[in-house]
């Protein structure tokens, strides 16, 4: 099944209204699961919500949140407000997400799944130039020697708080698993060259926050579904699979899942990973190529005998002028799957 709620959302008379209404969004997620015959109710992958909720704590409106970047070290009182555990109202989208979870949780044959951005990815969205800051940290430059590194460290702290608040709210509303999306934990941000020479940035900026979040999920008996569609190196995949031990590991189309199966414990289900970002184009990704890749993936996963769910490399967005071609390719992909 694809991560396809956005496609179904756009069957609504007014998708934006439905996006922000818990009842309507819940029905969209239910229809998404039914459409692709899955008990897994995967919601919209709206990775803007935690940033909006976080910045609201310091008075930044939802409208301005997307473009807001911290460019200088955050004032201590502001940082305290960002990291505070005190409850604060969520934005309309987050409220709808939570209400939709409650709706799904009331349906006996569906498994309610939450969604959140990962702390490192959120931190990168809080900065104008996160790659340079991460690269400086990777060279061993500390917060005292670089304002960029200082801001990154602060943003990461604030981001982890925001993600934890989001997880707790979704669990309280019925989530039994949460898909945490960490696409920035990839080689575009974390240099393999630096990692090879002993840099601890992957451990410090990615793994440590995720291990703390995983402990919180475990304590709440909520499963982790880990998604990272960025370009990865093998040690990253191994760390996600073995140390975070998600129930499902969802990877981008740059990975060959049947090779990754060697890096992943047998009880971690691999999800994915058809190149759905290219489905809009018949020249870049004709339907015959979709079928060929799906057949190849399924055959190889069967041969390696690793548990696998056929799916998309990321969420499949609705492209107005290419909706039909995208849906045709999703159908072509799913038609290759053996009947349940």
């Amino acid at each position, binding site marked *: 099944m694809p991560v396809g709620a956005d496609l179904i959302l756009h069957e609504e008379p007014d998708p934006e209204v439905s996006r922000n209404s818990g009842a309507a969004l819940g029905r969209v997620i239910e229809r998404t699961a039914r459409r692709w015959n899955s008990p897994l109710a995967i919601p919209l992958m709206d990775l803007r919500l935690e940033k909006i909720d976080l910045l609201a704590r310091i008075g930044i409106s939802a409208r301005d949140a997307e473009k807001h970047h911290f460019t200088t070290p955050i004032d201590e009182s502001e940082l305290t407000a960002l990291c505070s555990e005190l409850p604060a109202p969520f934005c309309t989208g987050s409220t709808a997400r939570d209400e939709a979870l409650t709706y799904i949780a009331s349906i006996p044959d569906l498994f309610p799944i939450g969604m959140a951005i990962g702390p490192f990815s959120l931190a990168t969205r809080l900065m104008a130039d996160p790659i340079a800051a991460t690269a400086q940290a990777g060279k061993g430059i500390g917060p005292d020697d670089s304002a960029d590194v200082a801001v990154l460290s602060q943003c990461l702290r604030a981001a982890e708080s925001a993600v934890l608040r989001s997880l707790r709210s979704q669990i309280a509303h019925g989530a039994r698993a949460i898909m945490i999306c960490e696409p920035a934990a990839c080689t575009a941000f974390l240099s393999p*060259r630096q990692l090879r020479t002993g840099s601890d940035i992957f451990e410090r900026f990615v793994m440590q926050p995720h291990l703390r979040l995983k402990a919180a999920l475990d304590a709440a008996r909520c499963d982790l579904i880990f998604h990272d569609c960025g370009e990865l190196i093998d040690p990253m995949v191994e760390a996600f699979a073995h140390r975070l031990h998600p129930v499902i590991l969802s990877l981008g189309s740059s990975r060959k899942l049947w090779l990754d199966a060697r890096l992943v414990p047998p009880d971690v289900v691999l999800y994915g990973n058809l190149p759905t970002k290219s489905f809009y184009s018949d020249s870049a990704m004709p339907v015959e190529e979709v079928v060929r890749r799906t057949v190849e993936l399924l055959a190889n996963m069967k041969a390696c005998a690793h548990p696998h769910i056929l799916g998309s490399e990321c969420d499949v967005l609705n492209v107005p002028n290419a909706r039909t071609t995208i849906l045709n390719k999703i159908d072509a992909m799913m038609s290759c799957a053996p009947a349940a």
Partner: protein
Amino acid sequence: MAQWTDLYDAILNGDAKKAHASTQAALAAGVAPMELIQHSMVPAMDEVGRLFEAEEYFVPELLLSARAMKSSLDLLKPLLSASGQKMSTRVVIGTVKGDLHDIGKNIVASMLEGGGFEVIDLGTDVSPESFVAAVKDRSPQVVCMSALLTVTMPSMKTTIDALNAAGVRAQVKVLVGGAPVTMQYAKEIGADGYSENANGAVGLVKNLLAGAAA
């Protein structure tokens, strides 16, 4: 003219502070700005590009080297301007309307600046009208458009259509890039070029301009 090794190494290693200091030292020693650019800085960035293609360098190294190059150029530009010399090419860059992602765009902008181009960054969520206005007002030779989402890619075509409608399309080379963009898509919408990464974008701009000048 011998290469100014400290400056070359500083750029290669992505050390902006050392690049700045080496440039100051070179200028104090009487080295001409254009000679520094041609014999130390451009070769260093060429080597950075080669290492990237060889997968020895990655995006973070590219970005740090581009930053180091820029820290040197910031010292040299006023001197070049005062002596009547100018930077080679002006590039307008932006993320298209509806798309707020800026990391890829920023990397390309940094690399182009590091490559010695004058870069006018229009930011994110840039309307076709704003691209057209920038072409009219700033007379760039190149327009670069970025999109991260499949849903915002059509804004690239809308922008090219707007450049055509305004009668300024022929004045500029149009490059497109971003995660979902492909060479085929670039051709379909009438762009002049596509690059799948920032390093390639610099080479592409150089090649397109060389072709236009030929």
